[in-house]
C-alpha cells in the first residue's frame, strides 16, 4: 500500500510539540532532518510509530527521521505545507544545529564551513595549475605558447582572486548578504590597489598611502590573504544585522547596504587588514617552521597526529594554512603531510581488509580503503581503523615516517628552480594529489612508504580475534543498562516498598542532620550516608517533580509519594554538582539511574551529603515501617 504522504507529515507534525518548537526542516536522500528547539517536547515513541517513519535518531543537534529514498521528498513537501514552513537547505539546518553547539566548537567550525564549499573551485584550479606547470618540464617550448598563457590564466584565477571566493562563502556562513560580501572581497583585491604580490617591487617610501583620520593606510591589496577577509565579513554580518534592526524600514533599503559597506571597509582597511595580515603571516610562518624543525621531526609529529585531528573534525582548519601557503609562496608544503597521514590510513585499512576473515568487516574495509586512497579517509578511520584502534595507531606511524621523508624532499617549479616539496593546490591528497605535486616521483615514494609502513605494521600487530573497541565498550554499557533493582528496602507500607536508592549506611529519620527532615514534617523516611554519588529509582513508577536546583526528585508509585532529597541545604548550590537523568513525567524502573551528584562539591559547599528518602504522604498510608531491610 502506498504511503499517504499528507497523513504521514501530519502525524509527524503532531508529535513535535507545536510549530514554534521546530526551528527548521530539510531532507537528504533518505531522512527528514529537523532542528528542534526543545527535545523534551517531542513524543519520540509516537514519532517512531508513525506509519512511514522507519527509524529515528538524534545527531549533531538534528532530529533525523528515516523515511526512505523517493518518499522523503514527498513527505517533506507535505510537511512544509502542513507546518507552513519554507524549505530550508541542508546547510541551513546544519547552521541551526550548530547554533546549539558550544562556542569553541562553533569557532573551530568556521574555517571548514568557509572553505569546504569553495573546494571545487580550488581543486579545479589547483589540479590544472599542477598540470600546466608540469608540462614545460618535459616540453620547454610549451611554456612560450599561447595555450600555456591561456591555461595559466584559467588555472590561477581562483587563487589570484581568492579573497572574493572566501568573502562570498563567509557571507553565507555568517548569514549576511552575499552580494555585499562579494563587494568586500572584490574591494580587497581591487585593481587600483597595488597587488600584494608585486608590492615588493616598491621601496618602502614609494607605496602610496591614504591618510584617514589617525590611520595611514597603505594602498595594497589583500591577494592571498584569508583571515582578514573572514574577519571582515564576520564584522560586516554584525553591522548589517544591527542596522537592519535599528534603521526604519522605509529607508532600510538604501541606508543599510550603504552604511554596512562603508563602515566595514573603513574598519577592514584601517584595523582588521593590517593587524590580521601580520597575524596570518605568523601563523603561516609558524606552520612552515613546525613542519621543518628538528630536521623533519616536526613534520613527523604532525604526520602522526593528523588523523587524530580528522577524528575531531579539526582538519578543515588546515585549509586556511594551505590556502595561505599557496597564495604567499605558491607551494603548499602542508599537503605532503596530509597525504602521508591519509595514505597511511589507507594502508592500515587495506591490511585489515586483506587479513580479516569476518566477511562483514571485509566488506566494509575494502571499499573504505579504496576511498582512503583517493583522499577521503573518514570511512576507513571511523569504520575500521579507529574502531580496532591498532590499525589507526599503525597508520599514525606510517604517516609520521612518510612525513619525515617528505620534509627532506624537494621539488622543482615551472622554471626548474629547486623549491620545497609540495603541491599547487589543497583539498586533494592520495592518488588524486599526483598531478598537484611538484615532484611526482618523490610523491609516489612518499605514498608507498606511508601505506607500506602502515600496512606492514597492521599486518603484524593487528589480530582479528580482537573485537572492535567500540564493541568492547558497548558490551559493559549494555550490562549497566540492564537495570538491577536494589535488594534492600528502606520504607515499607501497605501500598508497597521503597527500595534503597543510594548505596550507603541507612540511618534513622531522627538522625538526619536537619530539624525539618528529622521531625518528620515532610513525611516519614530514612537518611542514607552515601558511598557513591548515584541515585536510582526506588520502585517502578513515575517522576512527579525534579527541583529546578536539581538536588531533589519526587516520584510516585501506587499511591506512594516519595521525595529523594540529596544533602541538606543543598538547594543553595543551585544545581551545581547535580545531574538528573530523568525529567518530570518520565516512567522509571526500580534501579534505573535517576540522578548523579558530586559528593566532593557538596562537601566543599559545606553541606552534609546525607540522601534523605521520605514517604511524603506517609500519614495517608497504612502500616508504614522505616529502616533498612
Amino acid at each position, binding site marked *: 500500500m502506498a504511503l499517504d504522504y499528507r497523513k504521514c507529515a501530519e502525524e509527524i507534525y503532531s508529535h513535535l510539540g507545536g510549530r514554534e518548537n521546530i526551528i527548521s526542516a530539510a531532507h537528504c536522500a533518505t531522512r527528514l532532518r529537523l532542528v528542534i528547539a526543545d527535545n523534551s517536547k517531542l513524543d519520540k515513541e509516537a514519532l517512531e510509530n508513525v506509519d512511514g517513519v522507519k527509524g529515528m535518531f538524534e545527531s549533531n543537534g538534528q532530529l533525523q527521521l528515516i523515511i526512505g529514498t523517493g518518499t522523503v521528498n514527498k513527505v517533506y513537501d507535505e510537511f512544509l505545507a502542513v507546518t507552513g514552513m519554507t524549505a530550508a537547505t541542508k546547510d541551513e539546518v546544519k547552521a541551526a544545529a550548530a547554533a546549539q553547539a558550544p562556542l569553541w566548537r562553533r569557532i573551530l567550525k568556521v574555517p571548514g564551513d568557509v572553505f569546504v564549499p569553495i573546494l571545487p573551485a580550488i581543486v579545479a584550479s589547483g589540479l590544472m595549475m599542477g598540470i600546466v606547470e608540469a608540462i614545460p618540464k618535459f616540453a620547454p617550448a610549451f611554456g612560450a605558447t599561447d595555450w600555456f598563457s591561456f591555461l595559466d590564466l584559467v588555472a590561477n584565477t581562483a587563487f589570484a582572486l581568492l579573497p572574493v571566493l572566501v568573502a562570498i562563502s563567509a557571507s553565507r556562513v555568517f548569514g549576511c548578504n552575499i552580494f555585499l560580501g562579494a563587494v568586500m572581497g572584490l574591494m580587497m583585491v581591487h585593481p587600483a590597489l597595488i597587488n600584494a604580490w608585486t608590492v615588493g617591487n616598491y621601496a618602502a617610501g614609494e607605496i602610496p598611502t591614504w591618510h584617514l583620520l589617525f590611520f595611514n593606510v597603505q594602498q595594497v591589496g589583500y591577494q592571498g590573504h584569508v583571515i582578514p577577509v573572514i574577519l571582515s565579513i564576520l564584522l560586516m554580518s554584525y553591522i548589517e544585522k544591527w542596522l537592519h534592526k535599528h534603521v526604519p524600514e522605509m529607508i532600510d533599503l538604501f541606508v543599510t547596504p550603504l552604511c554596512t559597506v562603508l563602515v566595514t571597509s573603513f574598519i577592514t582597511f584601517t584595523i582588521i587588514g593590517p593587524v590580521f595580515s601580520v597575524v596570518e603571516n605568523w601563523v603561516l610562518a609558524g606552520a612552515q617552521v613546525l613542519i621543518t624543525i628538528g630536521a623533519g621531526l616536526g613534520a613527523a609529529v604532525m604526520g602522526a597526529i593528523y588523523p587524530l585531528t580528522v577524528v575531531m573534525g579539526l582538519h578543515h582548519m588546515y585549509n586556511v594554512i594551505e590556502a595561505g601557503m599557496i597564495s604567499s609562496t605558491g607551494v603548499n608544503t602542508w599537503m605532503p603531510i596530509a597525504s602521508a597521514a591519509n595514505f597511511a590510513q589507507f594502508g592500515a585499512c587495506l591490511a585489515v581488509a586483506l587479513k580479516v576473515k569476518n566477511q562483514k568487516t571485509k566488506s566494509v574495509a575494502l571499499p573504505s580503503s579504496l576511498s582512503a586512497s583517493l583522499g577521503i579517509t573518514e570511512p576507513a578511520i571511523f569504520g575500521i581503523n579507529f574502531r580496532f584502534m591498532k590499525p589507526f595507531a599503525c597508520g599514525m606511524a606510517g604517516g609520521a615516517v612518510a612525513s619525515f621523508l617528505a620534509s627532506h624532499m624537494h621539488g622543482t617549479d615551472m622554471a626548474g628552480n629547486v623549491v620545497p616539496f609540495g603541491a599547487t593546490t589543497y583539498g586533494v591528497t592520495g592518488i588524486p594529489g599526483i598531478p598537484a605535486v611538484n615532484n611526482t616521483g618523490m610523491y609516489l615514494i612518499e605514498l608507498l612508504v606511508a601505506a607500506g609502513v602502515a600496512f606492514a605494521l597492521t599486518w603484524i600487530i593487528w589480530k582479528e580475534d580482537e573485537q572492535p573497541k567500540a564493541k568492547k565498550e558497548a558490551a559493559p554499557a549494555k550490562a549497566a543498562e540492564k537495570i538491577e533493582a536494589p535488594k534492600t528496602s528502606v520504607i515499607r507500607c501497605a501500598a508497597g516498598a521503597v527500595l534503597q536508592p543510594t548505596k550507603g549506611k541507612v540511618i534513622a529519620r531522627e538522625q538526619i542532620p*536537619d530539624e*525539618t*527532615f528529622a521531625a518528620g*514534617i*515532610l*513525611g516519614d523516611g530514612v537518611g542514607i550516608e552515601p558511598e557513591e554519588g548515584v541515585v536510582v529509582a526506588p520502585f517502578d513508577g513515575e517522576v*512527579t*517533580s525534579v*527541583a*529546578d*536546583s536539581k538536588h*531533589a526528585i*519526587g516520584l*510516585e508509585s501506587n499511591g506512594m*509519594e516519595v*521525595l529523594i*532529597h540529596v544533602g541538606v541545604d543543598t*538547594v*543553595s548550590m543551585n544545581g551545581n554538582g547535580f545531574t538528573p537523568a530523568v525529567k*518530570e513525567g518520565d516512567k522509571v524502573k526500580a534501579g534505573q539511574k535517576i540522578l548523579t551528584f558530586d559528593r566532593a562539591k557538596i562537601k566543599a559547599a559545606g553541606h552534609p551529603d546525607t540522601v534523605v528518602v521520605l514517604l*511524603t*504522604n506517609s*500519614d495517608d498510608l497504612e502500616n508504614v515501617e522505616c529502616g533498612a531491610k
Partner: protein
Amino acid sequence: MKSFNYTITDPVGIHARPAGILVKEIKNYVGTTVTVTKGDKSVNALKLMALMGMGIKQGDTVTVSIEGENEEEVAAKIEEFFKTYF
C-alpha cells in the same frame, strides 16, 4: 472563598522544607481546601509533591485561595503563616 496574593521573599522559595511546613500547617485546618496558584498552574496545597513541582521562587507572586469551614479565620492565619515563613 477567600484568597490573597503573596510575593515570596524567602531566597530559596517554596522548596522541600518550606513546602513541608506549609503542608503541615494546612493539615491543621480540617475541612478547608487551600489552593496555591502561580501563573496558570494551581495545586492543592496539601499535595507536597505538586507544590514542589510548581518551582515557586523568590520574587514569584502566588495566589492562595481558601475554601471551606471558617474560611475567613483560616485565611487570616494562613496569610500570617506565609508572611512569617516565606
